[in-house]
């Protein structure tokens, strides 16, 4: 039903930065930033600490599996020798066939087992990691969340964590087994004949530098490459998102031309990048499997000079050829390493974020009184810059009274309200609840004292009852219903197909803003905290529901210490104290006026101007308003 709204509001969910951050990393076979492998491992390996036994088992099993992979090569070599020696019988060869069969079966069984082990371990690790991050997110200053671009943390918890699976479930067993195989085979070859062994590994001398120079050349251009792709992605996303506006303003051709340019540029850049990088890329892939080119001449020469037996020659022809394939696997991992390391670092940033310091012991609290004393606070920006938003704010909210916070947008009202719940710690001064500094009680105790109803209600993808019960997880069904009744929500909830068991969220019922807000109030009522903070709680109410919502709020406020932010001043004109915040010229917010409604009107300051403005917009018809309002402003 609400689809209609989405169309006009423009519904592209992806923001440009999101696209640019994630979409350039479709791993081509191309090289990437080349952080040293050791650095990558230092960051990545600790993630395998949970369940390390399983990872170790998986790695060892994988190594056994890849060693079995060598079996058929060896068997074939022996089978050929049976023919060459002329001593073998049909029975001997059947026996070799059987041995090969055992190797093949063992190899695949071991690999399957290893893969199964590593995946199970990885999924368990990711689960623990996500839970830990979820816990951590509840304990860090809220600024950790607000300072980031929208969607960034969600992406970290879902996608970046998921990406670690590549390392945990794949790279650990693959790399270990590739390394073991490489070492074992190399040793084996050297034991048979060191000169031939050198010939077999000689291509590495060429491939190594090729890989390095390819990676370097790629890395030089890689930033440009990503930039061209980002520009294109950004342009496309913006094109789609802006389409409604662009079309209604008849600007389609220009914006299309811009986007087309960006796409063509990116394609041209990719093509040029490919042309430049391809020779070394191709050479590497051709050479890495072509030690035949050194084995054949060396082998033939040594054999002809009688310093190499026929058996050893055949051995190198069969086993020595192509054993470097495992080097290819190592190389491919090194191209993924940059992405994996990046994902790991992003994950670590949240996983290791500093939580707000927490005291373990519950404090003795007095009456529900809020005392804000000389509080100053700065927000940290995206770029770590700090912006002072509150300065020298002091007030006391006595138990059972109403304190209103009013003022223009950006004056710091919401920040102040959130500080009361210790979403952040203040920079200067102190906030105490019940006579105790909020930093000197456990978060759980503070949250028992304070219920917070936000401007934009957040309901979880759960049933209605489940959402209300967040207020007190052990509440009975009766308690839930009682709270819903008090919040004026029982009636519409009962009208829903599944009543209290109606599922909310994407797949569930859609509620109007006012209905959602009343569920949030029921939740707060159920919690029954002595202090209530309302942040613009009626802001998104549809007018039709407003009266019911207000009744619910009255119920919630009754007998509690209430701190309330309101834009519509008439609602708070009966407050015991009104604090007027202002942040002139982008400076920090301060309390510029305080008192009761009548006192503030008499003061004839900011409050009285706000009052007159709101009075006008509420009551005067549009046409008449122009003149009288211009006098006010």
């Amino acid at each position, binding site marked *: 039903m609400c689809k*209609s709204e989405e169309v006009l509001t423009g519904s592209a969910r992806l923001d440009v930065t999101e696209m640019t951050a994630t979409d350039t990393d479709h791993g081509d076979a191309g090289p990437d930033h080349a952080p040293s492998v050791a650095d990558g491992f230092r960051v990545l390996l600790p993630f395998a600490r949970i369940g390390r036994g399983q990872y170790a088992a998986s790695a060892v099993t994988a190594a056994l599996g890849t060693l079995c992979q060598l079996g058929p090569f060896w068997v074939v070599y022996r089978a050929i020798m049976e023919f060459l020696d002329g001593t073998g019988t049909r029975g001997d060869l059947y026996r070799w066939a059987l041995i090969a069969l055992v190797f093949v079966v063992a190899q695949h069984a071991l690999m399957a087992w290893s893969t199964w082990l590593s995946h199970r371990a990885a999924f368990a690790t990711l689960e623990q990691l996500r839970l830990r991050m979820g816990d951590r997110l509840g304990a860090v200053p809220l600024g950790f969340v607000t300072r980031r671009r929208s969607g960034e943390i969600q992406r970290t918890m879902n996608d970046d964590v998921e990406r670690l699976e590549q390392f945990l479930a794949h790279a650990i067993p693959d790399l270990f087994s590739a390394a073991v195989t490489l070492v074992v085979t190399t040793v084996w070859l050297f034991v048979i004949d060191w000169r031939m062994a050198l010939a077999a590994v000689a291509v590495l001398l060429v491939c190594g530098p090729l890989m390095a120079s390819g990676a370097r050349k790629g890395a030089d251009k890689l930033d440009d490459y990503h930039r061209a792709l980002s520009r294109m992605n950004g342009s496309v996303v913006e094109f789609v998102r802006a389409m409604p506006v662009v079309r209604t303003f008849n600007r389609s051709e220009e914006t299309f031309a811009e986007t087309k340019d960006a796409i063509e540029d990116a394609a041209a850049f990719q093509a040029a990048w490919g042309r430049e990088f391809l020779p070394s890329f191709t050479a590497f892939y051709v050479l890495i499997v072509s030690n035949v080119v050194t084995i054949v001449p060396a082998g033939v020469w040594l054999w002809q000079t009688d310093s190499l037996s026929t058996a050893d020659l055949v051995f190198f022809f069969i086993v020595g050829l192509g054993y470097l394939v495992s080097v290819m696997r190592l190389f491919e991992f090194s191209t993924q390493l940059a992405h994996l390391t990046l994902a790991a670092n992003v994950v670590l940033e949240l996983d290791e974020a500093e939580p707000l310091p927490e005291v373990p012991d519950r404090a003795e609290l007095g009456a529900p009184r809020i005392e804000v004393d000389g509080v100053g606070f700065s927000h940290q920006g995206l770029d770590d810059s700090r912006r002072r938003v509150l300065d020298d704010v002091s007030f006391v909210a006595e138990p059972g009274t109403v304190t209103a916070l009013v003022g223009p947008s950006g004056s710091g009202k919401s920040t102040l309200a959130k500080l009361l719940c210790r979403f952040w710690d203040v920079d200067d001064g102190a906030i105490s609840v019940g006579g105790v500094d909020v930093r000197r009680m456990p978060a759980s105790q503070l949250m028992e004292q304070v219920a917070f109803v936000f401007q934009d209600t957040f309901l979880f993808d759960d049933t209605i009852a489940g959402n209300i019960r967040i207020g007190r997880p052990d509440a009975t069904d009766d308690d839930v219903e009682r709270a819903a009744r008090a919040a004026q929500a029982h009636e519409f909830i009962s009208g829903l197909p599944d009543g209290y068991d109606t599922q909310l969220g994407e797949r569930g019922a859609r509620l109007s803003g006012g209905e959602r807000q009343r569920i949030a109030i029921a939740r707060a009522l159920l919690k029954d905290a002595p202090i209530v903070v309302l942040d613009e709680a009626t802001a998104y109410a549809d007018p039709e529901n407003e009266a019911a919502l207000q009744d619910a709020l009255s119920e919630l406020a009754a007998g509690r210490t209430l701190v309330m932010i309101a834009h519509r001043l008439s609602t708070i004109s009966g407050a015991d104290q009104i604090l007027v915040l202002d942040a002139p010229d982008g400076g920090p917010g301060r309390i510029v006026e305080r008192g009761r409604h009548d006192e503030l009107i008499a003061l004839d300051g900011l409050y009285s101007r706000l009052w007159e403005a709101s009075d006008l917009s509420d009551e005067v018809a549009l046409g008449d308003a122009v003149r009288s309002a211009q006098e006010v402003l």
Partner: protein
Amino acid sequence: MSLVDVDSDSSNDVSAHGTPDDVAPTPGGTVSGRGFYRGPVRTTWRLFGDRRREMALSIGMRLLQAVFIGVPVAVVAWIVDEIRLDRFSSSDAWLAVVIVAASLVAQFVTGWVSNRYAWVSTFEAIGDARIRSLQHVQRLPIGVASSRRTGDVSAVMTSDFEMVSAFAHNSLPVIFGAIGLPIAVLIGLAFVDAPLMLSVALSIVVAVPIFLLINRRFTSAAVERADLLASANSRVVEYVQGIGVARSFNQTGRKLDSFRLAVNDVRRVNDGMAVKLVPLAFVSMGIVMLGVPIVIAAAAYRGFGGAVDVGTAVVFLVLVLRVYGPLIQVGVQVENLRLGDAALRRIGAVMDLAEQQQPIEPTVTPTSHDVEFDDVGFGYEPGRRVVDDLSFTAAAGTMTAIVGASGTGKTTILNLIARFWDPDEGTVRIGGADVRELTADQLFDAVTVVFQDVYLFQGTIRDNIAFGRPDASDDEIEEAARAAQAHHFIAALPDGYLTRIGEGGATLSGGERQRVSIARALLKSAPIVLLDEASASVDPLNERALHLALAELVRDTTLIVVAHRLSTIRSADQILVLDTGEGPGRIVERGTHDQLIDLDGVYARQWRERSRAANWRITA
């Protein structure tokens, strides 16, 4: 090496799109004839347009490369046989070395040419295809193009094309190369000894249908998994969005059921998948490799039985290992094939949406700036009307307010006038002309839209205001900004009108953004204004300013507004009250404020409620 990636698709694939099935054809866009998507290879072929020749050349070169890779193996087999017969001379040795070296050079050359054509033609072809599909998107009804049900069009245009690109320039040649070498070797062996060649082919022949069967299982499992994961991931996303609520109820992290269960679900789904699929992943590769013992046994049977000479048996033994290795590469690439295929399906779904028909040259001329709805019915989904029986006229120069509860289709009315969607029934007219018969210029010269959630471009404030009239002078821009009550706050910004907004620039409050967009509309000065009034409350000074800006917008225009504020509603010349009852939204009352109050119906009741609300005060 684990051969098949059990956990299949990349996670951003899941979160960005959900499953391919989500992208069902959208209403308003019926599929015309056969769909765009016709299987991965044919659709890719289609996307390649005039670069098909390069792609074909690339694949041909890759097959040739496979042959050259086979040459050294043949040389080795020949050397072994010569040695066995004790007739390997030093001139033979020179010949062998030269051939091996030459094949290496040939491999490099063919590989390089193949890569070059594959890469360059893919990048260019994908670029062109992107542009073509953007052109297509541009011709869709705006509603269709920005509806979530269409899937995220921008994600299709960016990541899906990127995925197809990766598939086309990387996987496709690798797959052909990996199949090419075994085929080349098998053909060669067929000339040596057909029965032995069949023993080599036996395991492959057995493995192929099993491989296809398992692969189908993988695909369906991946779709199922993507579905389950998308739902679990969205609950994780929700936890982060609701972190404030979670904290204020001390229900953070694993204490919150919905979060903990979502995380558990991710593991459960993945575990289930691993248990089901891991053993399967190794079955077909294992079967292929069983060819080694089979060939040894067959060589023993024929070689010692005298059916073939010993040399032939040896040749087969040397070559057997080179046949099966590359096939394993195919298994690895299948995952990319699957991802590319899913991306192609989503691209196809967008391409299949029907474009909106609009005349290029004017055929009719609106005679006035009246807006008229004539028995209009519309639904976003077939069979589910959102509005029905809408008939009204908004006379030129008057203000019409649309009121009603959420879900009654208020915004839909604006969408239909601006042709974001076209009605299923009835006609929308401007000045007597059906909006479907107007050119884009005619329509949007007449109509301007002020959105509720204002979209501002990354750019300067000036650019944003001048968007409707790029040639406007600075004075005109300032004049519009003043009229929209935006001049004051703009002038107070560090760079004034040249302040950049958006990421890394100034952030504006909701009220300020809406005033910038009103300035934009004022500058364009279209005779018909569609306004979706912001429903969230703003502080009184902002509200006041917005109100004045609106008053400015009203002058001399036909204003149709989805109204939330009492003052706006009251000053309307005509109020349309929408109500759903049980069915679609219909106009249940109409008239001026006073008339509707006298009528004492839905409107009067709501008005009384709201008046009561307006007088409410909070007390402890």
